[in-house]
């Protein structure tokens, strides 16, 4: 059976699969797609996965204000987190500050948020950026908000796990310090990904396709997940899930 789905729904389903078996996922600022993926993973886990979403009153059990997420992460109580970036490079360095000379950036982004900390401490940090172009995926970021890898003497139980874009999924190899192409989303080609990626990466001979969401998954996304995520991201829910 051929199920129709939106690109966002494929990404939500793909990221949710990466959260299977985890106990606690936290969601930071401006993250509607990762937030939806976490809520989908929670629905599939039958209550085993806890989701803590910044800006939500319903899906947030923190009672100690803004510091608790960070304290929790430093203690190893958060298994997965999401980061984006105005620029991401092949060493998984991320730039949330701006393009060009600092501080008078040609293009200024909001800022580093908690990235310079959580990237070190959360074991499974999933990088997510829908736009997959050479201006985002660059050889070297202009400003390192948070580095992908660290020297051995740096306390770092956490770090990059994968990079999910609108075209494909990369897995980060910590030993080599580089990305490995894991799968291409349906409708996208290796030629296109090669052309649109500004950094070099490893790839297998036969590249698998990113698994499509099942009918049951789509139903969950459009029902429960759409409803739950709309509390924190009403504009996103309206745009993606409204008919």
């Amino acid at each position: 059976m051929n199920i129709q789905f939106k690109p966002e729904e494929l990404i939500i389903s793909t990221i949710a699969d990466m959260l299977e078996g985890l106990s606690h996922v936290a969601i930071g600022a401006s993250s509607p797609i990762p937030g939806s993926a976490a809520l989908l993973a929670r629905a599939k886990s039958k209550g085993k996965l806890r989701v803590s979403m910044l800006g939500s009153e319903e899906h947030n059990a923190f009672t100690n204000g803004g510091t608790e997420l960070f304290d929790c992460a430093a203690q190893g109580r958060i298994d997965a987190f999401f980061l984006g970036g105005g620029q991401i490079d092949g060493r998984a360095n991320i730039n949330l500050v701006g393009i060009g000379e600092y501080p008078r950036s040609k293009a200024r982004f909001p800022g580093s948020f908690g990235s310079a900390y959580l990237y070190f401490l959360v074991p499974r940090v999933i990088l997510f950026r829908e736009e997959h172009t050479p201006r985002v995926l660059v050889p070297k970021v202009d400003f390192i908000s948070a580095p992908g890898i660290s020297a051995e003497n740096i306390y770092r139980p956490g770090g990059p796990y994968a990079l999910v874009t609108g075209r494909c999924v990369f897995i980060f190899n910590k030993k080599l310090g580089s990305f490995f192409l894991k799968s291409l989303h349906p409708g996208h080609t290796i030629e296109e990904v090669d052309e649109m990626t500004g950094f070099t990466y490893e790839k297998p001979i036969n590249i698998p396709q990113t698994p499509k969401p099942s009918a049951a998954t789509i139903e969950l996304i459009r029902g429960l997940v759409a409803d739950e995520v709309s509390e924190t991201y009403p504009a996103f829910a309206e745009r993606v899930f409204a008919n």
Partner: protein
Amino acid sequence: MSLHLDNINTLIELIDSGNKLALAPDYSGCAMKAVRYLINHKVRDLHLVGVPSIGFQGDMLIGSGCVSTVETAAVTIGEYGLAPRFTDAIKKGAVNIIDGTCPAIHAGLQAAEKGIPYMPVRGIIGSDLLKKREDWIIGNNPFDKEDSPLVMVKAIAPDVTLIHAPLADREGNVWIGVRREMMVMAHASKTTLVTYENLYEGNLLNDTNMAAGTISSLYISALALAKNGAWPVGLFGTYPADDTHLRLYIEMARTEDGFQNYLSQYVLDKEIKE
């Protein structure tokens, strides 16, 4: 001793040009009405501290020329896109930016709260943020003889914290619920000014259900009633953001002229007449 003031104007007079002013992000307690008064008072050279980020109130203060330095982990207006007046000010070099990261800002305030000069923070090493910060240094864990580097951030003691809260009582106690970063802000600041939505009948500290989420009047310098005081952003547990108005702001604030129009329509002299 009553900490209550008759109007927001008197409250705002306690903020001086050049003050280091701590503000909350849009999802926490933003004293937006008081910020409009502040703009009318033509304060200058404010050093804003976003705890740990700032949104609309930061963008409006920057656009109004009230700010010389922004110290924050981010200036973000969430789903609405980039903060227009902040972005423009950075391009023009009109404000000095001190880029931080959320836990380091929290840690700096906690150090001030504890009366100690600095606080160690995990992570950060290898980030370009560190290169730009003279108030962050790399030390070594003194309990570990091995090479064990750790960033130490200098205490942040704001001159003033300005927040909006859902409830306050006649004694000057202020209820902030689980948004306890505002409690740390009050503890760390020399002066804490509060606008509040509703008066609580009785003493918040006498009710154990409320006391844990209450900033004691010990830390509150002055407060004033402000109905709908967070508008157009929302107030947790009380009312949502005014989406239509925020979109209007974004549209108008895209240009300098548009922003000036916004100010003359919605900010300048509007509140003072109350």
